[in-house]
């Protein structure tokens, strides 16, 4: 009896301890689950660094339009922002590609409704893409050229299937279907007036349009009939248009805005962190944006590849990365493709290209030698034209001039207002200039356009013709597999950046998104053209 009493005493102890710990574990796990569990409700206020010109995604090219307007629309496919760059269906449920890569078939979800209650069918998708690829007279489509060479025709065999027939295989076609600009519009509205969407909103997205006060703000509220169950978590959103950086940073600091989807510079981040401590969370990633040094290949002595190579050799990109990344958006050393993307050249190989070497002394000595050989005198003077935006343009301009000074070049920094700046570039009225490039996704078809011959690419201000590069571009766009494509891309990069150095990237940008700690479900991606408000929720 004594044993059983002792056992019972221990037993009771054991049992109660077990229950006690189990309760704790249970409470802990449910607490953990609570903090991770998305909460419905709340209005998200975010700042936008510009104002939307029109509301038509097919026509505009500025993020200032996307941020307030895109939440009202769906696209055929979209990028899963929590797993970038994975592509998932938005309005499309599943899709298949024919063996020869010429036929893409998309199955449209059932039960998707426009905000006015009418159902979305394949007719709407067909009409949308016909507007984008074959716009009627008088309708502008900014990205038409990306598709026109590739797409032959579009069919809608039944109410929930859309088929694209391509003229040639295209490695980037699927990604283009996920482009954030390709809002799906209602066919009936387009038929009545193809320009209706420039001033009006009617989509199938997670939020319904409420109010827009020009120059001030944009308001949307939750779509109760959104096709994704339980989404969106938010009750609504308000976008504040704040063009200048200083008040935009101040809006986050004072809590009037919770987040900004483009990105701030490091100084603003440091200031916000110092001011708000743990009330603010900072997310950083690389960015599909960069600054390029553009050389006027038609002007002497820049028509000589030796001079151009000298210019790129003189730049200590690795040192620049360290110094500039503390005060500006410039950070990552990379060639033609974003460092970190699947197309990027590994560092070891990159260091073999002119301007990317790790030993700057050797590079600069080589640069001086090339200049001398090409007959450029010591102290040769030319102008560098730049936008008059302090960061990162000014910073980079000042840095470049300092680098070129170290190989005996005397460069004048001329900063211009936007209008004059673009005009001079287009007219070829410059010696050297700083230009920038932002793309919405890692896709060589997009990143390489700038380097094609001037008559093929209006984005190429450097004024040269190079049929070798043009041909390589065509080939890589049609490549059968990734390995072949990468091979062609390496060849392109070597010729463009190393042998010819027509124009060259200086550094790729870093994206810094400080936001209120209450904002959850947001993950910074390398492109500021994406923000999926359907994933975002606000903590208490």
């Amino acid at each position, binding site marked *: 009896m004594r044993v059983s009493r002792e056992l019972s005493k221990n037993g009771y102890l054991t049992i109660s301890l077990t229950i006690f710990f189990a309760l704790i574990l249970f409470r802990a796990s449910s607490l953990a689950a609570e903090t991770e569990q998305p909460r419905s409700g709340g209005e998200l206020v975010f700042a936008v660094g510009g*104002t*939307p*010109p*029109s509301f038509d995604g097919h026509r*505009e*090219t*500025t*993020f200032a339009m996307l941020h307030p307007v895109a939440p009202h629309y769906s696209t055929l496919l979209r990028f899963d922002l929590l797993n970038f760059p994975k592509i998932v269906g938005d309005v499309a449920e599943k899709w298949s590609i024919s063996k020869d890569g010429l036929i893409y078939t998309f199955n449209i979800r059932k039960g998707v409704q426009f905000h006015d209650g009418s159902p979305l069918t394949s007719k709407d998708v067909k009409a949308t893409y016909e507007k984008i690829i074959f716009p009627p007279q*008088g*309708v*502008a*489509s*900014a*990205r*038409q*050229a*990306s598709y026109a060479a590739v797409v032959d025709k579009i069919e809608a065999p039944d109410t929930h299937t859309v088929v694209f027939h391509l003229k040639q295989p295209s490695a980037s076609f699927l990604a283009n279907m996920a482009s954030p600009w390709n809002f799906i519009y209602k066919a009936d509205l387009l038929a009545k007036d193809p320009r209706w969407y*420039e*001033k009006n909103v009617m989509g199938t997205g997670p939020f319904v349009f409420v109010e827009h*006060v*020009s*120059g*001030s*703000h944009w308001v949307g509220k939750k779509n109760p009939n959104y096709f994704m169950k339980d989404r969106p978590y938010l009750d609504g959103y308000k976008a*504040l*248009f*704040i*063009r*200048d950086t200083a*008040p935009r940073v*101040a*809006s986050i*600091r*004072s*809590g*009037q*805005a919770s987040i900004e989807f483009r990105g701030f510079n490091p100084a603003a981040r440091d200031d916000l962190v110092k*001011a708000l401590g743990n009330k603010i969370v900072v997310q950083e990633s690389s960015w599909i*944006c960069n600054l390029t040094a553009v050389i006027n290949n038609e002007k002497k002595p820049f028509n000589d590849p030796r001079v151009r190579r000298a210019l790129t050799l003189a730049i200590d990109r690795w040192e620049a990365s360290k110094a500039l990344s503390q005060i500006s958006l410039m950070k990552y050393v990379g060639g033609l493709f974003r460092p970190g993307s699947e197309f990027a050249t590994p560092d070891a190989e990159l260091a073999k290209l002119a301007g990317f070497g790790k030993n700057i002394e050797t590079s600069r000595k080589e640069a001086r030698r090339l200049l001398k050989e090409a007959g450029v005198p010591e102290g040769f003077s030319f102008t560098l034209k730049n936008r008059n935006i302090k960061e990162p343009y000014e910073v980079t301009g000042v840095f470049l001039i300092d680098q070129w000074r170290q190989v005996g070049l005397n460069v004048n920094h001329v900063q211009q*207002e*936007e*209008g*004059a*700046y*673009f*005009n*001079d*570039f*287009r007219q070829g009225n410059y010696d050297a200039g700083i*230009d*920038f*490039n*932002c*793309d919405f996704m890692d896709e060589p078809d*997009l990143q390489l*356009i700038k380097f094609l011959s001037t008559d093929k*690419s*209006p*984005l190429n201000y450097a004024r040269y013709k190079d049929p070798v590069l043009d041909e390589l571009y065509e080939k890589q766009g049609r490549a059968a597999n990734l390995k072949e494509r990468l091979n062609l891309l390496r060849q392109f990069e070597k010729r463009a950046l190393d042998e010819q150095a027509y124009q060259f990237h200086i550094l790729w940008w870093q994206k810094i998104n400080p936001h209120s700690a209450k904002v959850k479900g947001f993950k910074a991606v390398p492109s500021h053209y994406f923000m999926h408000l359907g994933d975002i929720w606000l903590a208490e």
Partner: protein
Amino acid sequence: MWRYILKRLLLMIPTLLGVAILIFLMLRVAPGDIVEMKYAGTGTYAPKEALDRERAQLGLDKPLWHQFVSWMWGIVRLDFGTSMWTGRPVTHEIAIRLELSLQLALMATIVAIFLSIPLGTVAALKQDTWVDYCVRVFSIAGLAVPSFWLGILIILGFLIIFRWLPPLTFTSFWVDPKANLAQLIWPALAVGYRYSAVATRMTRSAVLEVLREDYIRTAHAKGLWEKVILVRHALKNAMLPVITVIGLEFAFLVGGLVVTEQVFNLNGIGKLFVESIAQRDYIMVQTLVLLISFVFIFVNFLVDLINACLDPRIRYQ
């Protein structure tokens, strides 16, 4: 009298026409147009056909004289055109922002009056004492301190000390007076201070003039009441020159609004103007310049009218 008024009013028309021609030509001379700004400014690829199509839509491909005439013809029919940036009527864009700028101008003027009259009077009453010197230095400082810097200091102060920022969106006074004032009182102070500078000195000299005369005549100023009557009489005399000065300084007010709206991120006419110039939105800039010039000329006309009422000699020039 009426002939003078009529003459001045009629003179406004050729002046405004001249302004219209001048601003139209000046803008077209500026390099870069709005289509360029929109597409090239975002660094993405847009083919020349898309750009040309945009230009055709905005009417930029027509010859200059054609653009000017169609603009002028529109104005005659009170159709001021559509903004090249947003595609909405110019009148709509301006109307949204007008209330804010008007209210700001009004509040700045009130601040100016509430600063200049008491300060000017006190300075006159205590002439040549340290009070007088302080007021004079304070008012000259108003001319020297950039109003945008004052605005920056105000914002900085709020951010650092209170972690607070004046509201960034505008709510009309009639909807929510507290939010409205919370946003506009600070820029009104920054602008009003400068606006009061000259008016303070004017009040001071006007009050001085009256005090001097009456003081000599009434040799014994007995106690408070006589002084008060004196000051009230002086203020009545000071009113008109002060109003004149406020009218003449009006140019500063408009300029002050342009810069201060940037600092405080106010969605007003001034900010619209700076942005439209940066975007090369010709129609908007043209209309804004016409509007600002019209108001400006009109205010000058009112000031001259007041002066003419006071001084008949001017009328017959």
